[in-house]
């Protein structure tokens, strides 16, 4: 069989359809099949990344229509990087949550299908070369995310999901509106083609479209002040879904934003806007996290803050900055999912999910506590863990751009970040008193996942060259816009 | 060999002189104080008599190793400082024969620190006896030291800055050359140092360390016999040292022993006189006292010296 990017989309859709049927044969299949899909994702990611060594990008045309008329999937080093990352995190989430709802399989079946669709939608966002399809995938993600947020029965989950839905539908509407305007002006939906024809759009419209996109994608990318849904959603969804939100979904939002900004538009001054928005997002989120007593909400705010930094990095827009942004995204995906994984176990039997309840948990859950501490160390950027290098490169980029104040602000906020993360560690390792929570011993598969992530964080920290080539390719591909356009528009036939 | 023999002889002579002068001054003070208080008082040799009495007594008790060491530390510090201080002016005829000792091998700051050595030993010895009064006396003494050290150091800094040297001989030599004593060329510093000397000599109103009425003599209260005798000897030598130091620094030193005696006695009478007319301060009052006007004078002295 010829491996192509289409498999990323087709296979999970098929699987999602089949899972209810297969699970009639054997209940376990509802759990196993998504795993197989994720595993296959990993395989094709590796194969396609291999193939990129010899060619600049893989453009897959669906239904025989070549771009700009047909719908196409574009697998560049940049999107490949994100797709591989998403597949990897998706797979880990599946392994981690394999035993989820062990007893009643109906919720489990729902959970796994939605999980799969969430990942698929995100991958779709990254892969598609067509702005309308991007919208469609965004909707897939959004709907799965709403459902997962409301996964647990009860008022809180429903409320969180409703808020998400409310804001999310704004996003959909705005993006759709932007697409419509864009289409009326240029007559095309292909992003490469759009980039070419963008100069035809009158300036004021261009700005309006840009703003619409910015707000629309900004909601998914957790930009301030559009991120009110995020803390609720993170804290109400099942534990591992937090990891998916932080590690995969947000990345999709960021990707969409970046793709629009970098490829379609050629507006000057966009960088400044991104920096400003990123800065505000980061500051507000980190400050909000400082006084947060709910652990998952704290992690959510931290996640938002990190995305703010990523936005700033994209805003700076130099080669180093984009490299830093991608590195940040990689680290954030790995570390934040690890944090969510471990936090889920720390809070397993808690009803309020507050940090207070964690006092002295390290005694009962030494491994999970260790992983959480490792994640905290890594995410605040302490060497020799992976978070350090991305932070360093981010600062280098800012320094090269002569943004001393920016550096000082980001680092001051980092101090706050250190304070709230270390407070939690302090609680966990405290011996002053012991927690009343009944700890749940981690299952073997979750231990495995956390070990893999922990090991990766240390390995990348000690030997970052392991991933930097990969990121360099990705950032080159993003920066090199004309290359993208040219390849998409000329490469007509599927290989 | 002859040189060394002479040196040892000189050192012995210096020590004996310091001891004799210190003891006599103490005796004179006792007599004078008594007369002022309308008592007959002891003879001026009373201190020597006391010492002979103490040394002839049998010492019955032993308060542990620090208690044993304390008098040694005092006498050691006293003798060491004495060796490094120029008793007479380096240009005087007597100096080169009998009193050079080790004066060229140390400077003012060294002397300052060396002088603490004895007090530290005393404090430790007093501490080990277990008498709370002793320890209280020590804490008072240390606190008071922090008090008077500030004007004293300010005065010394002014001196060192003014003459661009930290060597005592050089300070004396420069005063000699210019013909003006330090106490006249920089009176503020001299006054600051004089105030500090009140605390140094621990007469009223700064006799809070011994405080016979409340602390039963404080640090020394557990010592008797040979121990107290040695302490007394050390204390007398120290009194001589302090006076000589002041004479050297502020009065251009002395060319002959009579000159030295006159100058030191005059200086010595300052704390004694002050003591006659003053009741005892509380510790914090004493400290505050030194941090007030004396310190201001000291600062003024430094400013003048820099200019």
């Amino acid at each position: 069989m010829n491996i192509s990017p289409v498999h990323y989309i087709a296979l999970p859709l098929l699987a999602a359809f089949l899972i209810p049927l297969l699970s009639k044969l054997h209940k376990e299949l509802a759990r196993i099949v998504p795993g197989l899909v994720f595993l296959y994702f990993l395989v094709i990611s590796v194969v396609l990344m291999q193939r990129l060594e010899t060619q600049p990008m893989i453009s897959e045309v669906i239904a025989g229509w070549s771009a700009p008329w047909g719908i196409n999937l574009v697998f560049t080093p940049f999107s490949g990087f994100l797709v591989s990352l998403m597949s990897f995190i998706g797979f880990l989430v599946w392994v981690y949550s394999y035993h989820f709802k062990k007893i009643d399989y109906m919720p489990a079946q729902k959970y796994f299908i939605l999980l799969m669709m969430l990942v698929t939608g995100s991958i779709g966002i990254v892969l598609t070369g067509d702005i309308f399809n991007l919208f469609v995938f965004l909707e897939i993600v959004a709907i799965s995310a709403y459902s997962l947020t409301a996964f647990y029965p009860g008022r809180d989950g429903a409320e969180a999901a409703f808020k998400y839905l409310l804001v999310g539908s704004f996003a959909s509407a705005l993006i759709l509106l932007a697409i419509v305007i864009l289409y009326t002006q240029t007559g095309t939906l292909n992003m490469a083609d759009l980039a070419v024809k963008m100069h035809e759009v009158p300036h004021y419209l261009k700005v309006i479209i840009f703003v619409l996109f910015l707000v629309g994608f900004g909601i998914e990318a957790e930009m301030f002040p559009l991120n009110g849904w995020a803390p609720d959603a993170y804290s109400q969804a099942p534990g591992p879904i937090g990891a998916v939100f932080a590690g995969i979904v947000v990345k999709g939002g960021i990707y969409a934003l970046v793709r629009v900004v970098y490829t379609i538009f050629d507006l000057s001054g966009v960088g400044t806007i991104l920096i400003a928005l990123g800065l505000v997002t980061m500051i507000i989120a980190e400050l909000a996290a400082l006084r947060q007593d709910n652990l998952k909400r704290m992690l959510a705010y931290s996640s938002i803050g990190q995305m703010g930094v990523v936005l700033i990095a994209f805003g700076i827009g130099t080669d180093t900055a984009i490299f830093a942004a991608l590195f940040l995204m990689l680290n954030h995906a790995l570390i934040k999912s690890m944090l969510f994984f471990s936090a889920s176990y720390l809070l397993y039997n808690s009803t309020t999910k507050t940090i207070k309840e964690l006092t002295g948990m390290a005694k009962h859950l030494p491994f999970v506590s260790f992983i959480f501490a490792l994640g905290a160390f890594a995410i605040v950027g302490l060497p020799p863990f992976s978070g350090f290098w991305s932070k360093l490169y981010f600062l280098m980029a800012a320094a090269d751009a002569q943004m001393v104040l920016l550096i000082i602000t980001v680092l001051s906020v980092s101090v706050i970040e250190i304070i709230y993360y270390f407070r939690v560690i302090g609680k966990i390792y405290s011996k002053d008193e012991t927690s009343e929570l009944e700890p749940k011993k981690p299952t073997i598969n979750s231990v495995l996942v956390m070990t893999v992530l922990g090991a990766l964080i240390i390995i990348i920290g000690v030997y970052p060259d392991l991933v930097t080539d990969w990121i360099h390719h990705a950032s080159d591909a993003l920066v090199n816009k004309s290359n993208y356009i040219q390849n998409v528009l000329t490469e007509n036939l599927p290989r | 060999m002859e040189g060394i023999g002479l040196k040892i002889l000189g050192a012995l002579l210096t020590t004996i002189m310091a001891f004799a002068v210190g003891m006599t001054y103490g005796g004179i003070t006792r007599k004078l104080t008594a007369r002022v208080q309308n008592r007959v008082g002891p003879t001026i040799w009373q201190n020597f008599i006391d010492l002979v009495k103490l040394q002839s007594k049998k010492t019955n008790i032993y308060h542990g190793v620090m208690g044993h060491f304390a008098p040694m530390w005092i006498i050691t510090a006293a003798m060491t400082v004495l060796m490094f201080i120029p008793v007479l002016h380096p240009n005087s005829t007597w100096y080169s024969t009998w009193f050079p000792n080790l004066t060229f091998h140390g400077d003012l700051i060294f002397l300052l620190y060396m002088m603490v050595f004895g007090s530290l030993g005393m404090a430790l010895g007093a501490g080990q006896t277990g008498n709370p009064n002793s320890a209280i006396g020590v804490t008072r003494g240390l606190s008071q030291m922090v008090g008077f050290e500030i004007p004293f150091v300010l005065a010394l800094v002014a001196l060192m800055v003014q003459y661009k040297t930290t060597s005592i001989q050089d300070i004396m030599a420069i005063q000699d050359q210019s013909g003006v004593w330090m106490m006249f060329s920089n009176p503020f510093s001299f006054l600051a140092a004089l105030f500090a000397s009140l605390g140094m000599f621990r007469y009223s109103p700064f006799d809070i360390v011994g405080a016979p009425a409340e602390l039963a003599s404080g640090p020394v209260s557990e010592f008797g016999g040979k121990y107290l005798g040695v302490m007394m000897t050390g204390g007398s030598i120290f009194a001589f040292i302090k006076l000589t130091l002041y004479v050297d620094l502020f009065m251009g030193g002395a060319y002959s022993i009579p000159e030295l005696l006159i100058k030191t006695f005059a200086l010595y009478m300052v704390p004694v006189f002050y003591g006659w007319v003053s009741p005892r301060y509380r510790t914090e009052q004493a400290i505050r006292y030194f941090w007030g006007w004396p310190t201001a004078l000291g600062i003024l002295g430094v400013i003048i010296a820099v200019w």
Partner: protein
Amino acid sequence: MNTLALIILIFFSGATLAYLSSLISNKLPGWVALLTTMTGTVLFYMSFQNEQALSFSIIGLNLEWALDNYTILFAHIIFGLGILASLYSVQYMQNKSQQGSFYANFLLSIGSMFGIIISKDFISFFIFWEIMTWSSFLIVVWNGIGFRKNGIWYMAMSAIGAYAMLTAIVLINSEIGTYSLQAFFNAVQENAIDNLMLVSILLLIGFAVKAALMPLHIWAPRAYSNTPASYTSVFSGALSKMGVFGMGLVLIRVFRFSGLQDNFDYALVSQFTSHVLAWLGGITAAIATLYALVQKDAKKLLAYSSIAQLGYIVIGLAIGTKLAVMSALFLAIMHAVFKGALFMAVGAVERQVGTTDMTKISGLIRRMPWTFFVTLVSIIALAGVPPLSGFVGKWMLYEALITNGNFFLVVVVFFSSTAAFLYSYRILFGLFLGQEEDDTAHVKEAPATMVIPMVILALFLIVTGTYPGIVFEPIAHGMEYLGFTDVTWNMTVLSNVWGDSVNLQYVSTTIGVAFMLALIFLTFKGRKGTRGVSTKDISTSGEIPLEHENLTFQLDFFKPFERAAAPLYKRSITKIYEDVANGLEALFDFTRKIYTGNGQTYAIYVVAFLVTLLIVVQNML
């Protein structure tokens, strides 16, 4: 394999091994740590005479490690103290749980300290710096008590320092395009760095945090007093010297020998900064001393004393004359030795008695004579009384200040050194002298493996008191690396630029002779009739105390002094910090109000944001 890399590797793998060995037995990690430090130390001393350098590249950044004379000076501190502390630690930690994580971090921090000083580029410097920070942090919170108070402040202050440093580092890189230290110094020489002053000040802030300079010191008392004593000696002795190490580089190599001294503006700013730093050092010394003498806990007392001592060192570096730098480096080494010894001694008391609270301990001198001896010697050195080595450093510092014209600073230093006598006496009296209590009657001397390292340190203090030249030699070499030329020193004679000198050999000979004479006289005169008495056998104004009469004097030890100096105690910097921190947190709380949790509000945000953006962006683009 390169020895430098090998040493680093030994320490880091030793740390892993120490942790893993704790899974087998809780007794193993101590021995693993001892073995690791021994191997590392032996390796270092076998090879440090040779020129060694190593460079490699990691994600396109060149990392260089090398040994130079300045490095070797600090390596002596790290390894010397490290090996003694790990020997001491084996028995000290004997009955404590979770030794694995303690020793892992112990080794990590020693290894990373060595990493810091051999780093010849900012990246590895920073990486090792941070590893040092968090490994020491983990030891600070190792006992899991009072995390909020001890740990968070340490980490937050360290983070502020580290991030100031990181800012400086990336700014330097953006200007000269490399992280190499040598390239930075060269660029400084050629005046190729525009915002050199900003960068230097940021670097200084970073180092000042570790050197516990006021007002960045607030972490130190708590962190020092909360670590197990075997690590505190390294923490206060060696780790804080990393700040000194860095300050030396900036203040001397950059400020003093920058080749920009002719540039008026530069000279003005750099001298101003140095002056400010010197005064900060002076204030640190004075205030920390005042706080030290009111402490009731011996470890806290020593912690404040460490801060004060570091103040002197900073003064020396900031003044920057030959004598001043020499005194600073000398004091740095001596502080490592005597504070190392003191923390070990207090640790011994803690282990044998169970507390370091001086109001609960009294009169241990007969029970723990060796510990007392070590404490006594170290305290004499700390107080700067001749003939021990502390005096040498103090003397040089005073002379340097006076000859350089820092008249009022010298008075501040004098004040704090004099006030230091108070806490010196406090700790000696509090632990070892005074009434011998019944509840400490059973106490025994600490085991030999704890006493030996302390005694070695004490002997070092005694020897260098007369022959400081032993230490001057590496210091002089180190100073040549910093840029001084013809650094002169003498084995036993100290001298200043005015030509005044002190001959230490004469000093100690005189003291020795006088002491021996007095000893012979006092010991042999009427020896027969003397009997030893207990501390109860005293005359309290002629009365004989009853058997259970309380004669212990430990509370409010320096109350009169406190009263006299009351205005100086009124405002606690720590309190100010805590108020500011709480205020900020309360202020930041408003952000949580933004997230109302109300869906409608969020929807309004979206709309409002859209409108605002449309208006703003329309004007901007």
